């Protein structure tokens, strides 16, 4: 149980902290807790949104397409999700580019990072699978 004195002290210290003030500082602190960015929804990414729209259109048009626009959008999102996962994986691979001088600890850290990423990959593949199933390709 936290003591009253400790709580008061925490409050006092917290009131002194004003957080980032400059626009640059605010921008930087926004990503303080960001690790790989895979937990954010791909459709919320403004840079990718146009590409998703474009791919959705391609997938849903013509005889060769999958017909259903909703599922086409899901498939397009999955495609960019996988691309993002691949980029995150690449970052980890890059940290281990010098394999000859890597230590066991380096591998441990890298493998943990890969494990964290791999669950997002499984999720993206499953999502794509459901979209293909629903689209009745």
């Amino acid at each position, binding site marked *: 149980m936290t003591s009253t004195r400790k709580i008061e002290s925490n409050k006092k210290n917290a009131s002194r902290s004003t957080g980032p003030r400059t626009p640059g500082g605010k921008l930087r602190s926004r990503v303080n807790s960001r690790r790989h960015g895979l937990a954010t929804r791909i459709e919320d990414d403004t840079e990718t949104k146009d590409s998703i729209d474009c791919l959705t259109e391609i997938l849903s048009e013509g005889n*060769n397409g999958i017909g259903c626009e909703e599922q086409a959008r899901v*498939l397009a999102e999955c495609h960019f999700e996988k691309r993002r996962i691949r980029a995150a994986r*690449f970052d980890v691979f890059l940290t281990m580019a010098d394999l000859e001088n890597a230590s066991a600890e380096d591998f441990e850290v*890298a493998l943990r990072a890969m494990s964290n990423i791999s669950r997002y990959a499984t999720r993206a593949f499953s999502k794509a*699978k459901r979209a293909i199933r629903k689209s009745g*390709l």
Partner: protein
Amino acid sequence: MRISPTGDNTFSKSQNTGTQYLIPKGLVSFVGICPPLLPGEEEKNFYVLFDMMAEEIGPTTNVEWFAVADVVDLLWDIGRYRLWKNAILMVSRRDALVTALTRTHPYYNPNAKISLADEEAVLWRTDPKKQVVLQARLDEAGYCTDALNAGALMEAQMPLATIDRFLSSARGQLNTTLKEIGVRREFADRARKAFDERLKLTVEVLKPKQIGPN
């Protein structure tokens, strides 16, 4: 060069290999793009792999083209994981050697914080004369090459198992997609066959090396 069945909605593409195949026009900017490369990797090799898979599987629909791209990406990552496996074995062998040298050192003290074994391990790699002396010391204490390799494998067991899990997960992800496509088409069989063939070839090329003393 294959002829487009529709004639107008396809695009002929050739990437360094001389082979030509048809990617649907709209997908050219989404499929078959070389990923960022690590030091030592070559763009050409990626396109060779992509061409080979596209030729062999022969995708016909947009979704099948995406599946081919997934297959190629997974194979590319599997190649990288295999390099990790080799490197982990080497690192473990190095660590096992340091452990053995530490324990057999004439002034070995389990409570000492500073060890000369790291320095000796470097000498082992760089000085053949010193290596003979150190090997004799290890042999005397029962640390033969097989024992060192066994020790290295024991140390590498966990990371190797993790990588095997990744490899198996990659295969699982591929199956997940192919299963859905394969419900109505024989495409999945072709893709799976091509994937397995390619994997077999890579395994033959990258035969596991016997860990040597160096």
